């Protein structure tokens, strides 16, 4: 169990319709980790990654956990991919696209001479099959992301035409999602289950061997369409559940990358001569959710008071050891339309007293705080919040449940306050805003039952408006409204943390959490 | 107490001199179990040590075998065997003579054998270690020894485990084990006490006959006057850790020279005179931590006079090779023969 289990990358069920997107919003988080390039890349070597959990399945259409996604992204490539700053898309297996006047037909040109690891060349038939397969699995998989697609046609050998039901700006971002990655037509005659036992793609690496619970190994795809890449011979993900052991393995040279170091030992990880403690800007927001179905959380004053009591910098110092930044808004710095100036409530004793006095429970009350067990950061955060609220005579009992039971309690609204987190999958805010503030968005406003007509109106408008600047204005207003209504107390933005051996070059993690290994190489 | 030099017929196999055994407790007076005991056993001789419980006879035997329990030590004296003092031997030297030269038979046949090993193998252990026999030869010797103890179908019996045999059979196995290396001296610690009477008689006869065959001497500890008379030629009567009387069995039985020996006979039933009233010895044996001065039996002795409870009461030869620790022996039991 670890933090990643909770903030796993998944997507809300709401169909997304919105204006064309662009990546001009500036990013304010400190971007670290651009490793110094040490001369020309060296070919060869095996990259060993020590991780907390084993992958679950290679089926890119039905799988939601990070451990699996990070692996099959190295095998199967989509038409487009995310830029390094995670804010925009760039062509990958496609070379470009044209949009019809009514914005409902997209003509996409494919890159020529791209071969699958089996040697078969990628054509439009493969692209049509791959996208249609994803669309078919909407109820239990990622298919809902293609809900706006009417039809996919293979116009020529290297051109694909996509017809939409209605104007749909984020199409290209959707096509960049791993669930729309390109696989051989009809899975080369295998059934879906058989195919995903040893998936075939056009990516830099191809299937090696998987000893479940122990390690998973991919080997370099020598026929990769980007000549001369990948630099590595193979990549092995070892399952090492204990954080200390992962750290010792990286320091001992038995592993090159610790995929999930503990914050508590993160700084000391770097003190070792051969290991660099790297942080990458993320789209992770950790927040405290109030269940408005339970008294007294339907009272905005109570929510605002509590939000003002929480010492976010203390949490950042004690839990993230200074690596995070206090969160001021619903959106995260790594996401387009994030408004830096959103007046999110921060620690403010005067405000807390004022709001509490104006609330329905001025003398305080007793309540519970639900957290997933086995997560050291959440446990510490909960105890700090408990201590902060204690000063105002709000008695908090911490309730720990194992992650699945915790999630079940949230879904059934059987909690008072709960600690949760969210990371984005595609570079567009709507996925999170709909999940978080739209009660009919399928998740009862992230299980808070928050219902604000104004917020819902703003969010709906933002989805449909095509013009970038109007969308920006709408999202700014939305962030202000949510900051005022405080359905959540935003706690902190936590960067992604990796322990990387100094022999590993060009290792970068995008704000959406994945790390392409195409350009990674190991100096001797 | 000095030993009167007995007329020596032949070099003694075992010579115990002024042996004193006690428990050196850190607290006050330490208990003395055996005080200044001396006797000798010639080759082939069968020597008895008789006495009630707590008389120190068994402790003396264990001292000779070097098997004193933890916390009990030899405070004084020497034990010469084959000419060397076993007390000064190193454990290694001591182990080299245990088996081939000196062997022991214990009282409890039920627990004296290793419950997890077949009896044949246990008998073969000694010969293998000391006579350097191969496994097969040693096993063969064991079966032969079992046969000589009169146990039917010895080959099958050799493969049995101790718990599959009766008490009598087990004691025969013990005898076979003890005599497997033809020892010069066999120490017996009440070997037949745990057996019922009929089996006891067979075992004693077997033991005597085997010892004669092999020329082994015997040091036989028992509380049973009848057993001594049947088995041994010479004996010592012990009381409260000291020898009261020593002599040839026939002479001692016919003319005991010490009131304690006489009292012992009085308190035992007599087959020839079934009507005689048994006269139990009044009082209790003395405490071991502070023994009474003079003769330890004085407090319970019917002839006791003032001088009995003073002096060191040494063993004195009152008749030819017949010693007594009682000053009044002559007056009580008449002159020499």
């Amino acid at each position, binding site marked *: 169990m670890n933090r990643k289990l909770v903030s796993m990358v998944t997507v809300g069920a709401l169909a997304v319709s919105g204006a064309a997107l662009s990546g001009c919003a500036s990013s304010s988080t400190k971007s670290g980790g651009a490793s110094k390039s040490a001369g020309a890349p060296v070919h060869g070597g095996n990259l060993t990654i020590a991780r907390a959990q084993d992958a679950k399945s290679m089926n890119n259409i039905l799988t*939601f956990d990070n451990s699996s996604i990070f692996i099959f992204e190295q095998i199967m490539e989509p038409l487009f991919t995310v830029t390094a700053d995670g804010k925009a898309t760039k062509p990958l297996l496609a070379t470009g696209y044209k949009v019809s006047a009514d914005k409902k037909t997209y003509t996409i040109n494919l890159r020529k001479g791209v071969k699958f690891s089996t040697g078969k060349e990628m054509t439009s038939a493969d692209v049509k099959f791959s996208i249609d397969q994803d669309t078919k699995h909407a109820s239990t998989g990622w298919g809902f992301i293609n809900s706006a697609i009417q039809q996919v046609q293979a116009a020529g050998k290297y051109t694909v035409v996509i017809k939409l039901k209605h104007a749909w700006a984020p199409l290209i971002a959707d096509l960049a999602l791993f669930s729309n990655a390109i696989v051989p037509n009809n899975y080369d005659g295998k059934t879906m289950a058989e195919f995903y036992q040893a998936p075939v793609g056009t990516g830099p690496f191809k299937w090696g061997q998987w000893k479940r619970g122990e390690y998973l190994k991919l080997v370099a795809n020598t026929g990769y369409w980007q000549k001369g890449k990948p630099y590595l011979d193979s990549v092995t993900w070892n399952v090492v559940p204990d954080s200390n052991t992962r750290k010792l393995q990286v320091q001992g040279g038995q592993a090159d990358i610790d995929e999930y170091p503990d914050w508590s030992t993160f700084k000391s990880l770097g003190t070792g001569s051969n290991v660099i403690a790297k942080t990458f800007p993320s789209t992770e927001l950790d927040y405290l959710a109030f269940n408005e179905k339970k008294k007294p959380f339907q009272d905005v004053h109570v929510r605002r008071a509590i939000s003002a009591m929480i010492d976010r910098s203390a949490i950042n110092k004690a839990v993230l050891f200074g690596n995070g930044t206090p969160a001021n808004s619903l959106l995260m710095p790594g996401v387009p339309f994030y408004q830096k100036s959103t007046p999110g409530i921060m620690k403010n004793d005067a405000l807390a007293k004022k709001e509490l006095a104006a609330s329905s429970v001025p003398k305080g009350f007793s309540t519970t705080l639900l957290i997933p067990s086995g997560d050291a950061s959440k446990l510490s955060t909960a105890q700090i919040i408990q201590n902060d609220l204690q000063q105002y005579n709000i008695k908090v009992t911490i309730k720990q449940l194992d992650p699945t039971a915790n999630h079940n309690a949230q879904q059934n609204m059987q909690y008072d306050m709960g600690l949760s987190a969210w990371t984005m999958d595609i570079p567009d805010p709507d996925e999170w805003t709909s999940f978080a503030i739209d009660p009919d968005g399928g998740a*009862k406003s992230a299980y808070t039952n928050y219902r604000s007509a104004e917020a819902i109106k703003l969010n709906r408008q933002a989805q449909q408006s095509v013009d970038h600047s109007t969308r920006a204005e709408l999202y700014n207003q939305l962030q202000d409204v949510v900051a005022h209504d405080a359905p959540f107390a935003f706690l902190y933005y936590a960067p992604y943390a990796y322990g990387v051996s100094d022999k590993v070059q060009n290792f970068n993690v995008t704000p959406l959490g994945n790390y392409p290994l195409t350009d990674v190489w190991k100096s001797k | 107490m000095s030993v009167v030099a007995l007329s020596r017929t032949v070099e003694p196999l075992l010579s115990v001199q002024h042996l004193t055994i006690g428990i050196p407790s850190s607290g006050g007076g330490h208990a003395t179990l055996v005080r200044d005991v001396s006797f000798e056993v010639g080759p082939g001789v069968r020597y008895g040590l008789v006495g009630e419980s707590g008389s120190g006879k068994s402790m003396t035997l264990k001292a000779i*075998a070097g098997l004193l329990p933890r916390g009990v030590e030899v405070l004084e004296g020497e034990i010469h065997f084959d000419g060397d003092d076993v007390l000064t031997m190193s454990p290694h030297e001591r182990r080299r003579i245990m088996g081939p030269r000196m062997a022991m038979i214990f009282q409890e046949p039920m627990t*004296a054998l290793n419950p997890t090993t077949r009896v044949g193998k246990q008998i073969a252990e000694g010969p293998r270690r000391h006579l350097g026999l191969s496994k097969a030869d040693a096993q063969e010797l064991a079966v032969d020894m079992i046969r000589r103890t009169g146990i039917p179908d010895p080959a099958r019996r050799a493969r049995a485990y101790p718990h599959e045999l009766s008490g009598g059979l087990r004691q025969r196995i013990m005898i076979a084990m003890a005599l497997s290396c033809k020892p010069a001296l066999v120490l017996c610690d009440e070997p037949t006490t745990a057996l019922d009477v009929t089996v006891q008689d067979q075992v004693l006869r077997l033991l005597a006959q085997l010892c004669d065959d092999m020329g082994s001497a015997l040091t036989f500890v028992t509380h049973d006057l009848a057993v001594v008379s049947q088995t041994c030629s010479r004996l010592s009567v012990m009381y409260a850790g000291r020898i009261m009387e020593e002599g040839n069995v026939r002479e001692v039985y016919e003319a005991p020279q010490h009131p304690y020996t006489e009292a012992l006979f009085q308190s035992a039933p007599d087959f020839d005179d079934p009507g005689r009233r048994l006269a139990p010895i009044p009082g209790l044996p003395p405490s071991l931590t502070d023994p009474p001065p003079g003769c330890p039996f004085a407090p319970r002795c019917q002839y006791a006079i003032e001088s009995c409870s003073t002096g060191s009461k040494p063993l004195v030869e009152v008749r030819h090779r017949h010693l007594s620790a009682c000053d009044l022996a002559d007056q009580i039991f008449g002159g020499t023969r």
Partner: protein
Amino acid sequence: MLSRLKFVPMRLLQAVPVAFGVTLVVFFMVHLIPGNPAESILGAQATPAKVAALTDQMGLNQPVVQQYWHFLSNLAHGNLGESYTYQVPVLTLVWQRAPVTLLLVAYSVVLMLIISIPLSMLAASRPGHVRDHAVRVIPLVGLGMPQFWVGVMLLLVFAVGTGWFPVGGYGDTMMDHLWYLFLPALTLAISISPVIIRSLRASMLNVLESDYVATARSKGAGGRSLFAGHVLRNAIIPAVSIVGVNLGYLVGGTLVIEKVFAIPGLGSMLIESIFARDFPSVQAVALFVAVFVVLVGVLTDVVYTLLDPRVDLTQRMNA
């Protein structure tokens, strides 16, 4: 005297109700815990609608009793079902992970004996001596320290510090396994040795005071031959039943060690599948552990009768 050939099958028959009992209790226990596999698979950011759809698809909405009946009928055909997490027959997962845990446990028992026997001999040879008290007290530290702390300390010193051993992992060849599993087995041995040392020392003391040891001494046996031939052979008997009893528990209890040393054993599989509500995996591991515990029980009885001829199998039948 029940012959061993008849004894083993009879004891195995006894195992059937036990294994059945375990699966029954485990099945309902796992279903008792809130949250179902769909939630675990879809993760924290999935919506209730998606969870409901997957739950339906996996047939988890049927009443528990019906699901149990379904499970039993599959079991009858030797089919334990597929893991919800890995979509792979659970049996293959168990066959891959069971040898790891069994090797770890066996290895730790060997190390435990190597630690316990000499120490017990040391203590029993001079009771009441400083040596005796030391042997009684020091292993208690092993009992008191949590396994994960001992594990990480061993890693710090012997893996990172001196580099003699790898930091966790399992390796591929058999030689690798013994090298990789040394520190974990040592950690496990340290935590079970105190119990064995206490029993072994006590029974050694009893044996040393027994008459047959005096007999052995009277036959010139001493030192090593006395200890090996007579004392150890009798003193080990109570320890055998203690090891037997704990062995079964150990297989389920190696979780912490497997987590610290990154060993893909049954313990970690059990806890992972419990948290993921991967019912078939939990069933399979619970069943395997149950059968293993019974097999160990039978093995202990047979070994017991081999070591101690006085005990015959009928006595052990319903021990």
